[in-house]
């Protein structure tokens, strides 16, 4: 338990990490603005493919900022980044396979 990894400089100086804190608040404002825009779009853009596409793109942008900045993945080694991102390909396949399946069920019952 005593084995500790010091990747960061320990510093009692309150000015230390000011850069990081700035980046954190910047990320917060980006997330807040995107969420507010989602609300605006929810009540102004008519229902359809365009609206869904905008929502999905915005969700992925938000996910990028949360994972990249808050979870710090953007600043990790390439190996770690790919170890986390590559398995998500399976999720993409699951989405595609089950969307087609759902459509087939719909056609079988109501088509």
């Amino acid at each position, binding site marked *: 338990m*005593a084995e*500790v*990894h*010091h*990747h*960061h400089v*320990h*510093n*009692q*100086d*309150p000015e*230390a*990490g000011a850069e*990081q*804190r700035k980046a*954190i*608040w910047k*990320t*917060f404002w980006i*997330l*807040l603005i995107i*969420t507010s825009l*989602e*609300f605006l779009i*929810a*009540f102004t853009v008519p*229902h359809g493919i365009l609206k*869904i596409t905008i*929502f*999905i793109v*915005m*969700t992925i942008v*938000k*996910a990028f900022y*949360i*994972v990249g*900045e*808050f*979870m710090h993945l953007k600043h*990790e*080694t390439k*190996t*770690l980044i790919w*170890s*986390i991102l590559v*398995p*998500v390909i*399976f*999720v993409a396949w*699951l*989405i595609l396979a*089950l*969307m087609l*399946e*759902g*459509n087939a*069920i*719909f056609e079988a*019952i*109501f088509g």
Partner: protein
Amino acid sequence: MAAHVTTPGAVEPKMWLGGIEPMKASYGKLMMWFFLISDTFTFSALLVAYGTARFSFPAFTGKHEDFTFSNMYWPVPERVYEAVPFLHGVSLPLVFVGIMTFILIASSVTMVLAVEAGHRMDRANVEKYMLWTILGGFTFLGCQAWEWSHFIHGTDAGTVMKVIENGTWVEKTIFGANLTENQYGPPAFADFFFFITGFHGTHVFSGVILNILIFFRAATGFYDKRGSYEMVEKVGLYWHFVDLVWVFVFTFFYLV
């Protein structure tokens, strides 16, 4: 590697042969990441199952303002989630869930500020930001409890629906929802609401417990003695993941 002095019998350090951290992350942090990947699969399975069920039901095709609850088609979510505490009977679509989203994002910010303070061994700020994060977590859970309660009890008028009871079609007024009856739409819609938001809420709850533990250990000087605040970072990863999942639940359950 030229500067490396090799003693007879010693093995030259290689990237993947041990003794080196190829990902420059500690064991605990890596395992948290891989746990979160497995959790991603669980939540993806739930959300994709929701998508499948939605695609296999008819969608509401009429004009938006003509929408009424019926078990013949999938409901428009913003017409289901339009209640706000203390504003009984006022239609405010998605406002309450918007507040919940804001609370979770804000608590994610205070969490990452606690992690940053931990890097500087700044105990007072770790304590302060952990307390804010815990408060955010409890507030979110409180909001969710209210939302569930409202969803279960339903609207004042209820919905008149034709349902099969003991093998025959009967017409009756249904108030709210449970796992077999649902005034807002097909019963599957309520089932997915309970399972997905419930599973996420359970994650928030365990996150709050972990955050309290981290706060307690920071406040009692445990991490100062250990010489590292890395535990704050590991639990921080979990807390951000819970926020990340909510971003997806918010889009696919409430917006789309």
